[in-house]
């Protein structure tokens, strides 16, 4: 157990087949406490599927998942959440017509009991939401604002803030910086650093390779449902990562067309 308890997450031999397509083929993934792992690959490489296996949204055909050295099996997202694995979905999962505090506390609203009946404790909700936002350095003027009135970056911050404040051991983020303005990307990356500094292990899925080098400790490259490479950020460059993602495809093609392998982008 000593070897595996080093790791916050240890996924080994994960396979998943959607009828004719082997989406994941004997994939493994490891993650240390407080580590930020960048998971990259072309569309359809299996990174989202792999992260959904870890968040309980997809049940793998084979493989083993250990969290802090303990074997787990997730049948639903709720199981994963109970094991403190949180995922920020690409489509954010916010309720537009509910206010900021309401979205942060969705599904676990603080209650107060009056005459045996349970009511929302709104003052406490807003106070705790304010503290939560301040702790993560998220700037939102008023927790009573409806989410539909916020910018893309602020909405993203709320989605991440909500996941982070469940006190997760693992936080999975699927394309958190897609479709954000430059300054908003910076704010989200700061947020990722803040979360990992608190000991949360982060898996970051992104197509923005420059982001990886700003926040990640390690990068794992996937290609057609397999792991193809793993690099420490300090040992690699953006060119190499591009080659690992794209180059193999050229190499694979070149096997037929006898072309030269690895075209640097």
């Amino acid at each position, binding site marked *: 157990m000593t070897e595996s308890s080093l790791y916050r997450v240890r996924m080994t031999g994960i396979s998943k087949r959607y009828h004719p397509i082997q989406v994941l083929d004997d994939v493994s993934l490891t993650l240390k406490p407080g580590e930020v792992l960048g998971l990259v690959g072309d569309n359809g490489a299996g990174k989202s599927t792999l992260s959904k296996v870890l968040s309980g949204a997809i049940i793998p055909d084979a493989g083993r998942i250990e969290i802090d050295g303990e074997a787990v099996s997730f049948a639903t997202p709720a199981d994963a959440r109970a094991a403190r694995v949180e995922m920020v979905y690409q489509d954010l999962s916010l309720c537009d017509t509910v206010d900021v505090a309401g979205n942060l506390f969705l599904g676990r609203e603080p209650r107060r009991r009056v005459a045996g009946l349970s009511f*929302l404790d709104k003052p406490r909700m807003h106070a705790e939401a304010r503290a939560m936002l301040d702790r993560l350095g998220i700037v939102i003027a008023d927790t009573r604002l409806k989410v539909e009135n916020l910018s893309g970056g602020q909405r993203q911050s709320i989605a991440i803030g909500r996941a982070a404040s469940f006190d997760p051991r693992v936080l999975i983020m699927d394309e958190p910086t897609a479709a954000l303005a430059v300054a908003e990307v910076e704010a989200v990356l700061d947020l990722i650093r803040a979360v990992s500094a608190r000991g949360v292990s982060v898996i970051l899925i992104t197509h923005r390779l420059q982001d990886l080098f700003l926040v990640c400790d390690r990068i794992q490259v996937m290609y057609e449902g397999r792991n193809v490479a793993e690099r420490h950020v300090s040992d690699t460059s953006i060119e190499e990562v591009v080659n690992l993602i794209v180059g193999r495809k050229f190499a694979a093609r070149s096997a037929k067309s006898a072309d030269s392998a690895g075209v640097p982008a």
Partner: protein
Amino acid sequence: MSDSVIKPEAPSRLVRASWHEKAVARGGVVSIALFFAAVCIVFSLATDAFLTAPNLLNIVRQSAPLLIVASAMTFVITTGGIDLSVGSVLALTATLSAVLLQWGVPWPLVVLGLLCLGAAVGAAQGFFVAYEGIPAFIVTLAGLSVIRGVALLITGGYSIPVDPASPFNVIGRAWFLGVPVPALIAVAVLAVAYIVFNETAFGRYVTGVGANAEAVRRAGVNTRLVTLAVYVLTGAAAALAGIILASRLGSGSSNSGQGFELDVIAAVVLGGTSLFGGRGSIVGTVLGALTVAVIANGLILAHLSPFLTPIVTGSIILIAIWLNFRLFKGGSRSR
């Protein structure tokens, strides 16, 4: 937007909302409040009888069934659903209350039993909507037909009288502390609806389901149960309305409440609740229901044809919603 995200030292960009901005933010409720005030002022000036305590109490007494069912319908519409069967449930419970009283069933038992029946009918429809994924419009359209049919079958189309001496009639006819009992029941239901809608987790999830059901589901809430529950509310509310109506009229008719569902939906939509879900207001619904009731009452007092009522009501629905879209555009971005 973005500079406030990365510069915490920048001065707060939260500007105190002006009355106009506040009005826009609550667009639906404000426009119906203006309509309600305008209608009241017009009828107060045009007729002597309108602005008198007996008449106003009479309006509330007569509109009690509408107020009660509309408050429940606000929950359904806020989830993005609809319940077309409320008029039929009202007719069924009105006839059944007369039938059961004729059989000699004690009246408290009749009331309790019929409330449970209404809730059960709502639960059955809610099951098909929430768990089987059939659109609410279709499920409750079927319910509208079937439930009215059952009421007709029971009575053979005749109206069934309630014994005038029965204490059951207290519900619809008695006055308590100078206020009609149906009005008191309506106020109590509205107060509970307001609190549940705004101050409980259930009310929050109702809004959430209408805004983004998947988000609420991912947050670990049993959204299907929430959806089923709102139809239980309309079923029980329609049953209560049927009991009040039978008690007030002293008979149960299987033809009562025809088109009632449309009045209810009109009141809710007038009050600024979005038919697309996610946005609802109990206060707006109260104002919407009272506006509909005041127009009907005022036109009669002004000795105008009662057939003008549907014309005026319909026009106001269109104008009020048009105002929401135009004048108060900012309040409803995502439409």
